[in-house]
């Protein structure tokens, strides 16, 4: 029994010696190598913007919301985005937001925007001149009617103002007539006074005997004439003063008439079909997609009610500072999410100049990817973005990175198994990616399928596994 336990030192040494390591061999391959940047991003639709409803001065108070669109609803030009107290809120394309009621007689860029929209909707607003005229009004009427809504006409206040203006004009007409009458009366009075003086002073048919009397009468007449003249002059002066006053009054009355006539004209023109500010919203790009509805049915239709986006999917992402210079706008991007089975493609559209913009931290640089058209719904998902930075642009000879070693003279080499022996071949390394490196043999053949050493296997050493 004891003999079984006895071992020679040589046996012990042989048992304790490490096993001969065996090389781990892998074949040389041919493949295309791509060096990629892999990062993450979240998909969203572009150009998010809030939609607000401006209160209208034409309405006593805002209407109550009766219908609202669902999320992802497509908003097209001329469509109704919501209704409030039975009235529509239309959407048109335009960069200037609706900020005032658009009424006949008004002019400005917002009116021009309305006319352009009506034109696109094939409701002829006449010349697109930025003036709300009768043809614009007619086009608005057609637009409302085609959508099943009554156009918005003049309000009772507007009608009362127009009636008051008309009454004022009539009053001024009467005042003008009175002034003219007074003027004419003053002129007639002057003529009568002049004629009466002429009859007394210049009559030659009076007799000799009557001359003295006549002289006396003449003197009397002269005196009377002087008196009449003086009185006439006084009357004339008074009449002239009256005429001047009447003319002054008439001028004032005429001025007032002119002013009121202009007001009446405006009132008349503004009594056409109007577009209240709370019945129209302008969005720069259409069609748009409803991103989020913040308003509630039954609440007042004023202020922010929803947000919309365009229909272009973009992905917001960030790159570490060292990788950012390698990514340029226009680079293709492979988009995927393995867990969800998503695959798509896109293009880098923007790389920020400085770190820390667009909500990324100061150690990253923001970049944006535009997603190519895809039937897959990507919005809101976190997606993996693979950006090929460099490629061998064709099949090349590659070996695993671990097969490459550095010789004492600084050259790169691989150890190749040939005829049961291992030999080194000097190679020139190229692009490295995915754990492989492109190699070009320098002093010997290296063909695909040949085995190269990537390490040594020692089953006793757990740590080497």
């Amino acid at each position, binding site marked *: *029994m004891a003999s*079984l336990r006895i071992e020679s030192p040589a046996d012990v040494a042989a048992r304790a010696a490490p096993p001969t390591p065996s090389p781990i061999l892998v074949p040389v391959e041919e493949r295309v190598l791509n060096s990629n940047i*892999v*990062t*993450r*991003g*979240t998909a969203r639709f572009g150009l998010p913007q809030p939609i607000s409803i401006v209160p209208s001065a034409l309405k006593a108070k805002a209407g109550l919301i009766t219908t609202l669109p669902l999320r992802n609803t497509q908003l097209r030009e001329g469509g109704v985005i919501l209704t409030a107290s039975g009235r529509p809120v239309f959407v048109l394309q335009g960069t200037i937001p609706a900020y005032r009621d658009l009424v006949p007689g008004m002019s400005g860029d917002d009116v021009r925007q309305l006319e352009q929209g009506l034109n696109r909707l094939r409701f002829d607003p006449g010349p697109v001149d930025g003036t709300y005229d009768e043809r614009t009004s007619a086009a608005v009427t057609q637009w409302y009617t085609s959508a099943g809504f009554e156009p918005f006409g003049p309000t009772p206040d507007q009608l009362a103002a127009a009636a008051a203006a008309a009454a004022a004009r009539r009053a001024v007409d009467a005042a003008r007539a009175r002034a003219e009458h007074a003027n004419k009366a003053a002129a007639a009075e002057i003529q009568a006074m002049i004629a009466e003086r002429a009859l007394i002073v210049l009559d030659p048919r009076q007799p000799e005997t009557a001359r003295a009397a006549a002289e006396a009468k003449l003197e009397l007449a002269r005196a009377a004439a002087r008196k009449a003249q003086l009185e006439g002059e006084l009357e004339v002066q008074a009449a002239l003063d009256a005429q001047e006053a009447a003319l002054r009054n008439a001028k004032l009355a005429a001025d007032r008439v002119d002013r009121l006539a202009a007001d009446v004209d405006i009132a008349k023109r503004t009594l056409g079909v109007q577009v209240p500010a709370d019945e129209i919203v302008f969005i720069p790009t259409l069609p748009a997609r409803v991103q989020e509805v913040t308003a509630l049915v039954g609440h007042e239709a004023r202020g922010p009610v929803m947000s919309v986006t365009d229909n272009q999917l973009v992905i*917001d992402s960030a790159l*570490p500072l060292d990788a950012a210079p390698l990514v340029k706008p226009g680079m293709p991007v492979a988009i995927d*999410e*393995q*867990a969800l089975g998503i695959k798509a493609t896109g293009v880098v559209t923007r790389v920020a100049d400085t770190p820390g913009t667009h909500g*990324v*931290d100061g150690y990253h640089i923001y970049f944006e990817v535009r997603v190519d058209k895809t039937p897959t719904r990507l919005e*809101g*998902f*976190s997606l*993996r*973005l*693979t950006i090929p930075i460099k490629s061998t642009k064709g099949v090349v000879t590659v070996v695993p990175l671990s097969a490459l070693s550095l010789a004492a003279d600084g050259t790169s080499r691989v150890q190749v198994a040939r005829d049961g022996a291992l030999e080194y071949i000097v190679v020139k390394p190229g692009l490295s990616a995915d754990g492989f490196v492109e190699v070009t043999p320098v002093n010997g053949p290296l063909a695909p399928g040949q085995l190269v050493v990537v390490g040594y296997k020692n089953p006793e050493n*757990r*740590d080497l596994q």
Partner: protein
Amino acid sequence: MRNMIQAVVTAVVMLLLPGSASAQAPPEGTEEFGLTRAQLVQSVEKVEALISKCMREQGFEYVAADYNTVRKGMAADKNLPGLSEEEFIAKYGFGVSTLYTGQPPQLAEGYSPAKVGLGERNVQIYKNLSPADQVAYNRALFGGNIGETFAVGLETENFSRIGGCTRKAIEQVFEPEQLKVTYYNPKDALVNKDPRMKAALRYYAREMRKAGYEYNHPDEVEPDIRERLAAITNGGTIPVEKMSPEQRAALKKLQDYERRVAAKNFQLQKEVFEPVEERILEELFARKPK
């Protein structure tokens, strides 16, 4: 012939020695999974490096946590400042359903061994992600069970619930049997084989049944609570504030159950297992003090 004689002699010697367990070679290491300290450090570093590589392939940044960070995560399990283990168990049971918030571990404010084990830099990386990226990040890192980190798996010696890149990395470093729920490290396996421990386990099962619990081994309790919690919370993805009334009621019931069963489990461990295990380990490791 020589082999036959050797086998007979070995069998005789084995029969003469007291206790079958002591006849086997004691395990090499006394750390988790029967590893030596050096092996544990190497394994942790390899796993963390592989997690980092896998996450990078998924497009995420992950800074490989060092051994000390992972160790801190392990030590944070069932540990709150100012509370002894007994007090912790009395108050929170295993701290599984009782301290559940539904928040990802990176966003946890209070007790979270998982957060500690991930390391502060990874927590910051996570916090800087968009909400969608945060969901994808944790799916990539943990798989279906959010918060089942490498450190927690190491501490509980149970990798069975770990998924995602963490599992992929563990699979490349640990043996396949170490990933099974039934795995016992060599030391515990030796202890469990001892007749005294087997008797203690029978007593344990009896006592637990008397108290109304169907467990045969103390190591079955916590995983069972985790499974039940995962069933209520869809793998730990539903925050408490978003739970339905039924889910809240079920969680409350589970929390009460966890406290009661953990207290009973702890009591039996102290009274029954620890003295027996201590004696067996003394016999196993008497000549190899660590």
